[in-house]
């Protein structure tokens, strides 16, 4: 069996918010390059925190996180060229048009004006936004805003793409289009790290998953193997089987 090179390597990670006990303690995870990796867990399990640690938004108190072999702590500025991030919130300027948003975020991603123009044209075409390229985003529907959010995250063609609930609140057509585009990106070599509560969508998209709870990995592997291993027919059943049916976001 050929050994895949790691896109993300997390070793002996320690992290805790101030005033709380450590969320991650001696946490280890390896995400293979070229995979479509799904990160799941109940509310408060640590998904967003782990995503923020992997993108350098949070700094671990101990351990190592390497993106494509580069340690985040040591290569903070150069590591940022390696990945794109599509946050759950609409992370752009609503007063600007898609073209203006892409021009700004493209420049901040280190692209030249020529490349930005070319990529903007391509992305707006692929994501069906060409007709509204010069309209202000604040007047867009939720689905259109999601597509703008995605376009900004991939304008610099990063080898790693972090997606935090990229399809929340969109209609079936938009969800389908986004998932197809993500598959296309992955086919072209982009490693996807995806988190969502839409488990049916995850079944369609992910070829590797990890289920985490209270800062620990409960299961990790190929979704089909995990389902058969635990005698479940779908990810939702597997999820409830492993994490229980009680509310998980009772504490504040």
């Amino acid at each position, binding site marked *: 069996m050929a050994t895949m090179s790691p896109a993300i390597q997390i070793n002996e990670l320690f992290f805790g918010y101030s005033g709380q006990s450590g969320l991650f303690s001696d946490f280890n995870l390896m995400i293979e390059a070229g995979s479509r990796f799904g990160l799941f867990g109940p509310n408060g399990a640590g998904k967003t925190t782990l995503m923020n640690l992997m*993108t*350098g*938004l949070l700094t671990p108190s101990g351990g190592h996180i390497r993106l494509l072999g580069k340690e985040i702590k040591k290569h903070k*500025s*150069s590591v*940022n*060229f390696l*990945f794109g*991030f599509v*946050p*759950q*919130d*609409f*992370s*752009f*300027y609503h*007063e*600007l048009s898609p073209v*203006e948003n892409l*021009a*700004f*975020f*493209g*420049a*901040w*991603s*280190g692209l*030249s*004006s020529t490349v930005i123009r070319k990529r903007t044209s391509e992305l707006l075409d692929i994501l069906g936004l060409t007709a509204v390229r010069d309209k*202000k985003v604040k007047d867009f529907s939720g689905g259109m805003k999601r597509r703008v959010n995605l376009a*900004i*995250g991939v304008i610099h063609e990063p080898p790693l793409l972090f997606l935090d609930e990229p399809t929340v609140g969109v209609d079936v057509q938009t969800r389908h289009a986004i998932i197809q585009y993500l598959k296309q990106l992955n086919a072209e070599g982009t490693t996807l790290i995806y988190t969502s509560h839409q488990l049916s969508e995850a079944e369609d998209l992910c070829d590797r998953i990890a289920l985490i709870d209270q800062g620990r990995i409960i299961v990790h592997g190929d979704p089909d193997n995990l389902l058969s291993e635990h005698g479940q027919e779908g990810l939702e059943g597997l999820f409830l089987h492993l994490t229980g049916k009680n509310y998980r976001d009772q504490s504040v």
Partner: protein
Amino acid sequence: MYRLWATIQKDVRVLSRDKVGITFLFIMPVLLVLIVTSIQNNTFELINKNRVPLLVCNRDTGASSRQFIRTLDTVGLFTVQLVPADQNDQSIRDRLQKKDAYLAVVVPPDFSAQMAVRTKSLLGKALNSFGLGDSTGGAYDRDGKADVRGKGESDADGMPITLYYHPILQETFRRSAQGAIYSALQLVESRQLLRTLYFSINEKELPDTLENELMTRRAKISEIPVSRNGDRSTPNASQHNVPAWTIFSMFFVVVSLGSGIVREKLNGSFIRLKTLPTNYLVAILSKQITYLGVTMMQAASIFAVGVWLFPLLGLPKLNLPTDWAGLIFLSLLCGWCAVSYAICIGVFAQTEEQANGFGALSIVILAAIGGLMVPDFAMPGNFQTAMKLSPLHWCLEAYYGLFLEQGKLKDVWSNVLSLLIIIAGLQGVMLWGLKRKNLI
């Protein structure tokens, strides 16, 4: 460099599409300068050019009171409105409360008689001191000073002249009015004294021509403003107000810029910016450049209003300093100081409400202690020290050096140095805040 240019373009676009923000940054300051200058100019003209209605109730039938009223009319400050002598004090007070006028003078029934007694008394004393003996036949036991004082005060020399005033009148204006009434009284007394003296010596009436000549010939006062270039034009309300309120407007960018930074920190775009391979300092530098441009445009528009619009509205024209390069450099410094302050507020504020509330209020306080609202010489002693902590004070001092004293940049170098130190301090605090909050 391209990243900075793209960020400036983004900031300009975001700002230009915020219509309320644009109104706040450009229209409101122009209105503010227009209104404040109009009001102050009107106050100036009220005191110096217009006449204030003055009710006069003359209960005396003698010549001195008539002369006193004629003199009041010629002082130039009042439009005398005579009230029937039988009207009582309460009805006069009622008229003031109805704001028919803000001042009223009641001349007591024995005014002329008392005046004559006092004059004779004074003259007697004077002639005695010259060794000429008493030829006036007057009583010597009176001091002879007419009083203008509040109602209710007793006076052994007969009833004083009473001055009623509406409480709406400010202290300074009331003092001016009181001074003018004293002047009128002194003129009447002097005239009376002169006549009596002339009669005592010459045993005939003083000729009118000689009396007028003696009474109207006074030493003149020549007013010369001290300017650095020898310019003798008197500074007007525009010269005082336009620089002051331009600085105030510049610092009010805190509402737009400070809250803009907080908004960016709180919304998702900031999270994405932090994951991109560009330092957030580029965003801060872009905001400084963009808003420095805004403050320069504010200054240019307010100065333009002062130069071209004020005369059309009957307000005094703003005379720009002769040192244009100095004016531009100083405006840049003031703008940079304002922008640095606004960014500091934006970096440390947690919410937009904090940035707007604290930002706006702090500017009003700094303007007040900085001498923008009350002249620095009129400040209490401990405020004179606090004033030096206000960046607006140093901006104003430097601007006044150019606008009022017609100086050049070299004449205000100490203010420029103070401003540079304040800017360096604010930039240092800003960088420390960004570092502390893990933003850079």
